[in-house]
C-alpha cells in the first residue's frame, strides 16, 4: 500500500463522505469549537454528559477528509464511554497519529476504526487535522459543570 492509500483508507474516505453523528445536538450540556488558524478549518463538538459519561455527542465541521473522518470516528468511539475512558482513548489516538504507538494486530483490533489513522504519522503536517476534533472534545469536557 502506498503512503497515500495508507492515509486515505476507505474507512476515512467513507466517514468523510458520510460523517456519523453529524449536526447539532439537542439538549447539549456542553459545546466547544476548534480552529486550525493555519488553514481556517473549523470543528464544533456538542456533548451531553450524564453521570460522568458521554451520553451523546455530535459534531459539525468544515475541513479536510482527515479532520472530518477523525471527528466522525471519534464520536462513535467515545459515545457511552466515561469521561476518563474518553481521555484514555484520546491519548491512544494521539500516540497513533504521531507514530509513538505502532499497534500490533491485536491492539489494532481494539482500536477499531481509529486504527485507520495510523497512516497519518507519515504526514506530520496532517497530525493537527486528525487531532483537532479530539482537542475540541477535551475542551468541551473541561467546560462541563462538575457533577453534583
Amino acid at each position, binding site marked *: 500500500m*502506498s*503512503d*497515500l*492509500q495508507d*492515509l*486515505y483508507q*476507505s*474507512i476515512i*474516505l*467513507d466517514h468523510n*463522505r*458520510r460523517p456519523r453523528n453529524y449536526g447539532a445536538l439537542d439538549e447539549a450540556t456542553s459545546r466547544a469549537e476548534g480552529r486550525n488558524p*493555519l*488553514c*481556517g*478549518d*473549523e470543528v464544533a463538538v456538542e456533548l451531553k454528559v450524564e453521570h460522568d459519561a458521554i451520553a451523546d455527542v455530535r459534531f459539525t465541521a*468544515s*475541513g*479536510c*477528509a*482527515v479532520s472530518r473522518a477523525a471527528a466522525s470516528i471519534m464520536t462513535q468511539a467515545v459515545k457511552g464511554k466515561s469521561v476518563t475512558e474518553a481521555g484514555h482513548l484520546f491519548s491512544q489516538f494521539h500516540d497513533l497519529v504521531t507514530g509513538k504507538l505502532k499497534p500490533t494486530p491485536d491492539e489494532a483490533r481494539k482500536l477499531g476504526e481509529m486504527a485507520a489513522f495510523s497512516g497519518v504519522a507519515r*504526514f506530520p*503536517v*496532517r497530525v493537527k*487535522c486528525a487531532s483537532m476534533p479530539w482537542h475540541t472534545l477535551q475542551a468541551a469536557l473541561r467546560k462541563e459543570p462538575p457533577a453534583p
Partner: protein
Amino acid sequence: MNRRADFPLLAANPGLHYLDSAATSQKPRVVLDAMRGYYERDNANPHRGAYDLSARATERYHDARVTVARFLGVADMDCLIFTRGTTEALNLVATAWGRANVGAGDEIVVTALEHHANFVPWQQLALATGAVFHVCPLTDDHHVDLAALRALVTARTKVVAFNHVSNALGTVNPVREIAAIARGVGALVVCDGAQAAPHLQVGFDALDVDFYAFSGHKMCGPMGIGGLVGRRPILEAMPPYQFGGDMIEFVRDDHSTWNVLPHKFEAGTPNVADAVGLAAACDYLDGIGMDAVLEHERALVRLATERLNGIEGLRVYGPKPSERSGVVSFTMEGVHPHDLATILDQEGVCIRAGHHCAQPLMRRLNVTSTARASFYVYSDESDVDALVRALEKAKALFAEPVG
C-alpha cells in the same frame, strides 16, 4: 526557455514541480553568489567605520538601493526604505503615519481582496484611534468594485489601502483608478505590491500612490528584506517607526533629532547582505525583462485555467487569465484543498492550500480555503501537465467506492 538551471534547488530536484511561488520564489544562483560574495569580501557594519572595509560595505548597501529603486521606477532613491518585507513596510505606515494622522471619526478603507498584512494593521489602527473601518466589496468577477469604492470614500476618509495584485486570486487591480478615487477625497493612497513587484513593471513614479510596499523573497531575492517606497514630503513629515542607531542625528538627554531619508526609517544595523541579494535578483529579472516575465506567466495561467476547467468538478476562482498575474486558485468538488495538497505533494507538485492569509476574501467567496497554484519565471508547461495529472489522481482516489 528553461530557466530551472539558474536555480540550484530546482536543478537539484528535476522531479519537483514548485507551484507555490506566490508564497516565496526559489532563488537563482546569482543571488546566492552575490550574498556570499558580500560576506566573503565586503562585510563590515556600514555607515560608521572609518576604515576601508566599512566604506565598502556602505557602498554595497548604497548600490543595492540604487538598483532596487531603478527596478521599481523610483527616481528619488532615498524614498526607498529597506524593511524586513511587505508586512513590516505596511505596519510602518499604519503605525508611524497612522498614529500621527488618524483620529476618532476618521475613516479607513481597505478592500475585500487584501492579504491580512494590509488588512489587520488598518483594522487595529481604527480600533485604537476610534476611526471607522470600511471593507470595499468586490464585483462578481472578483475585481475591486470601483463604483462601491466611489460611494464609500468621503471627506473623512484618511487612508485607502489596497493591493496591486491579489495573492489569493492573482487579480491585477487598476492602481491608478483606485488612487484617483482616493485622491479625490484627499486620502492617503497605500498600495501593497508584494504580488506585483515580482511579476510586472511597477513604475512607482507613474502610479500616483503615496506608499508602495514589497517583499524581496517573492521576487527571487532572499527572505528578510523588502521595502517601502514613499513620497518624500510625507516621509519627511512622518515620525519615525523605530528608534535606535543609524536613524538619529543628535541625541540630547531630553530629546533627539532624526537622520535624513532613508536612514530615519532604518533603525539599527541594516540588512546589507540581503539588500545585495535583492539587488542581484532585480538584475536577474531585468535580464529577462518584466514584460517577458508577465507574458510567460500569463501563458501558463491561460493553459492551466483551460486544462483545469476541463476537469469535472473543478472550479477556478478569479478573473480571466488576461487580468491576472501567475496565480490559479481553485477548488475540487468533494476533495478538500488540504487533501489535494497532500496528494499532489506525493506527485512532487507543491501547491498552497488554505485561506492564503485572506480570510475576509474567503468568506466572500463562501469557502474556507482554496488550492492555489502559482507560476514564476522557472515554471513551464511540464509543471501544468504534472498539476493536471496529480489532480486527476486525487479525483480518482476520492471517487473510489467506499463502505
